[in-house]
């Protein structure tokens, strides 16, 4: 199959690369080939270290644990990735909540149209008593970092 250049559609003053460009498929490519426009950040943003306190705070908020160094590393990478956002100039730009923002969110009439499905809803819960979902005692805060036997405690 003859390989055609996208050059016709992607001109915009781009310089064709010097010399022959060898494509993966092994076809010799002649003519203009658009240079891939520079993508990605100019430099990788510096890595910010997240303190153990913040990590612990996150575990409490999310009620999900990091489990091991890989989990923490994942977060660090995620933050570093997200830091690229700061390259964009957003002065005077309003945040966008929804793509349907120029339409009115409607409200339906406050009429009861469905319900009475207690039995079905309780079926999926593991622990119920009569018509109640049963939870262990509340108002007991999750163990503080000092009291835990978790990965974060070890890394402190």
């Amino acid at each position, binding site marked *: 199959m003859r390989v055609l250049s*996208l050059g016709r559609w992607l001109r915009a003053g781009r310089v064709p690369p010097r010399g022959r460009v060898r494509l993966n498929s092994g076809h010799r490519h002649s003519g203009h080939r658009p240079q891939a426009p520079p*993508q*990605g950040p100019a430099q990788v943003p510096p890595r910010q270290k997240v303190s153990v306190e913040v990590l612990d705070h996150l575990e409490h908020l999310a009620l999900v644990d990091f489990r091991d160094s890989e989990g923490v590393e994942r977060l660090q990478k*995620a933050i570093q990735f*997200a830091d690229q*956002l700061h390259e964009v100039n957003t002065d005077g730009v309003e945040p966008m*909540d929804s793509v349907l923002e120029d339409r009115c969110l409607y409200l339906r009439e406050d009429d009861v149209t469905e319900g009475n499905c207690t039995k079905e809803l309780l079926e999926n819960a593991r622990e119920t008593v009569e018509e109640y979902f049963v939870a262990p005692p509340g108002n007991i805060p*999750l163990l503080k970092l000092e009291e835990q036997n978790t990965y974060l405690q070890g890394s402190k």
Partner: protein
Amino acid sequence: AALKDALRSQVSAALKEGRVTPTELCQRCLALIKSTKFLNAYITVTEETALKQAEESEERYKRGQPLGILDGIPIAVKDNFNTAGIETTCASNMLKGYISPYNATVVQKLLDQGAVLLGKTNLDEFAMGSGSTDGVFGPVRNPWSYSKQYKEKSIPKSHSEDKEPDWVISGGSSGGSAAAVSSFTCFAALGSDTGGSTRNPAAHCGVVGLKPTYGLISRHGLIPLVNSMDVPGILTRCVDDAAVLLGSLAGHDPKDSTTIQDDFKPFELPNLTDVSKLSIGIPKEYHAPGLSSEILAFWSKAADLFKNAGAKVVEVSLPHTRYSIVCYHVLCTAEVASNMARFDGLEYGHRSDVKDSTESMYAATRREGFNDVVRGRILSGNYFLLKQNYEKYFVKAQKVRRLIASDFGKVFRSGVDILLTPTTLSDAAPYTEFIQEDNRTRSAQDDILTQAANMAGLPAINVPTALSERGLPVGLQFIGRSFQEKQLLTVAKWFEKQVQFPVIQLEEVKRHDSGVFQQQKSASFS
């Protein structure tokens, strides 16, 4: 009628005329599902209920009163849609054993029109991923790994005749749905699309994947990932079928307040012959780093196709494209952190045995129920939502989102009707290669071309275009204006007709399809 046939043009007619019955169709599909079990496309196969639905449909056809074009048609649904009485797992331990008490609106609509639900398809856990490799039920295999076309191009690893090919991924996260449609086990499947989750596997599995405009199809019953970007996706073997499905599913739903109230009229796609009034935009930023030269070539060829047919083809710019994946990363993890908070073991789903306190029970349940990918996103999301980070990350990402959406707005206002872009950076990777990188890295790489359409809420469709050097499908993406699905699908249908994408040649299908085996016939009705 063969399992390969296009729904609208051939199967429906065959059912009406009695040349095939719904039960026959259903049985053939169920048998094929059994013999393609190694694809791991299905999590749950609802054999009994499917046959019952097929029988009921048959009764209706006998009385001459079918409910519509979808009556008796076997379909599959991604396992993150609630289906009453059927296990809905989202491929996660958190929801293993969870039997939904209700049908998602889209599922209900399909059932109301007589469709036969064959089962729930496999996905990445909670639809997070781009390979359908991270669910608890194992990865989905791309049916093309077992096709004659791929095997012919594979370098044999050894001299052994029955060596299993190095199978390739199906793409994600709706990989199961795409594989199910691609391997002829159903005529259409529902997927979901948040960052490309319907179009990506559609491209890798060689099927049509439609992401409708945000607000057109109800999300009620779709277990949410990112409320402001999720949409139910449609996977079919040809564009006409996608239009049929769209017609049955679109429209306002009082149970989903993010669906628009405008009247939706189902449409039949015209057979476009004159493209001279069309303006096709080629966004230069979609020539992303890592785009394979093969796909670049197909993209270029497609542009030429339109130009030679008389359409106006122009280069356009969407300057903030390269930030869309970063923006998505922040908004997605933030919304995920919020949406996953409902899984605490109390009302449904997995519950830990820990009893000391509510919070410790919640924490243990979530530790046991979620995999690394989900937990990672929840923690990242919570980080971005911390008071000290809220403005810096979350609000900033929302501002960048507006810039991305307005990029598209500018281009469409300048007279461009449809954008033409690649869907994926390359053809499907072998599984062993794909898992070398972690989920987040892969998603960041693979979603780059599909993600921006979700940011802006625009409709987009993958149309299978050609086979790569390795014998695997490659697709191209069309992005349209909001709520202009008719125009988008009309152009996609024209393109589909031009490219005549080859039919997959699978040994298993040959065996089951005792009807006419059509050699190299195009996926669409010609």
